[in-house]
């Protein structure tokens, strides 16, 4: 057995486990990438549907582009999140994982981080696709879009992963996950849409910063709460 380096010895054990679970989930995600492609296609279809609902009015579509992009990302996220515990559920692997000396926090943070990575990529693609479809002219620096994109995706991932674990064994998981998750992430969606909107349309009153702060607070609360409550959820 290779000896651990001094750097590894200084890292808390649960952080190493988090990293291992994150890598495991990303590898699994890569092996079943057809599912991710299906999500991207679903999100693209949603963007098209929003355009059809509003009509071929480019000004109106560009004005509300932020809302359509984030709604498409949220709707597609349920496809990803509902799958999050499916592999473990099907083969009883979660019980196996819990029998090992693995900190439940590591399972939560590993899975939530993996969902965050995939969801950020998906939202990024939706954002680019949406801006292209709705003829949005970007005024702000692209890095500011990336920061909102990462914060918004993280705001869906943390409560989404927790609720995915909660509903994993429910009779109607596909139904219950959005029923529980959508009302919960309304503040996050509101903040992400507003912050993205200000980046698109300009922000003379400098209001975007407050919405970004709200996104940060939402993330802090739910990433912390998820870690605390997840142990209870998988305990039974």
């Amino acid at each position, binding site marked *: 057995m290779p000896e651990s380096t001094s750097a590894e010895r200084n890292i808390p054990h649960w952080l190493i486990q988090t990293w291992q679970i994150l890598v495991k989930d990303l590898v699994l995600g890569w092996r079943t990438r057809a599912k991710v492609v299906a999500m991207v296609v679903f999100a693209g279809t949603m963007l098209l549907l929003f355009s059809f609902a509003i009509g071929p009015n480019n000004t109106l579509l560009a004005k509300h582009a932020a809302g359509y992009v984030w709604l498409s990302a949220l709707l597609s996220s349920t496809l990803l999140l509902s799958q999050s515990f499916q592999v473990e559920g099907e083969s009883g692997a979660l019980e196996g994982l819990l029998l090992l000396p693995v900190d439940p926090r590591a399972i939560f943070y590993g899975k939530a981080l993996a969902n965050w990575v995939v969801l950020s990529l998906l939202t990024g693609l939706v954002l680019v696709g949406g801006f292209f479809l709705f003829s949005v002219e970007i005024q702000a620096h692209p890095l500011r879009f990336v920061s909102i994109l990462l914060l918004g995706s993280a705001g869906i991932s943390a409560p989404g992963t*927790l609720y995915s674990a909660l509903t994993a064994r429910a009779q109607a998981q596909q139904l219950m996950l959005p029923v529980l998750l959508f009302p919960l992430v309304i503040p996050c969606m509101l903040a992400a849409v507003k912050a993205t909107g200000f980046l698109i349309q300009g922000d003379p009153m400098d209001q975007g910063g407050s919405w970004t702060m709200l996104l940060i607070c939402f993330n802090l609360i739910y990433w912390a709460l998820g870690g605390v409550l997840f142990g209870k959820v998988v305990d*039974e």
Partner: protein
Amino acid sequence: MKWHYALGALGVLFLGTGHAWGLFFAPPEFMMGDVGRILYAHVPTAWNAMLVYLFAFVAAIGTLWTSKSSWESWLVGFVEVGVVLNILLCFQGAMWAKPTWGVYWDWDPRLTTTAILIALFAGVLIQRNLFHAPDKRRIITGVTAVIAFVNVPIVYFATTWWNSLHQGLSSPDTVSNPMHWPLRVSAFGVLFLAVAFSAERAKQERARLEREDTAPTLPLAQKQLELGAE
């Protein structure tokens, strides 16, 4: 006599007195006239809906902490009564909004928050009904209730920034002297009734959980049936 029946009777008395006082003896509101008298029903419902959700949160913490069915029963009672008060709040608000704002619904922070709260806490009850394993169901109910409650101030904060039309928060300090007493009496009436109904539902839920605990498991019941048939 069970204590919650007495509390319920006291609630009816307080509510009747407060409402009669507000409807027939208190002066009409300065701007809205008689329409403003819905204050005595609407504001106590609003206060108590939030208070009952706070009780539900405490019961949820107790449920997760102790894993006792008594806490769980109270949690179910409070969430159910909270959702009923919340739905009533939306209807009363719509009835008040039409003559004063000209519309039944507006995307005002407090209206939006109350609508989201219905979805959040109704989700707790729906989710609970989808699980049959008692331990899993208890944890699920506790966790979803805690998350729903934690979300209340965030939703309110976000929607306040988003849009605001609702008048400032009503309290006995913001209404004039002849109006605040019927308001206080009505509020205690709603509180007593809400706690009494929650206690009754908690009692029923506790009895149901106990029946579930003592009920034979399916294979055993099947065996008993087979033995009976022989």
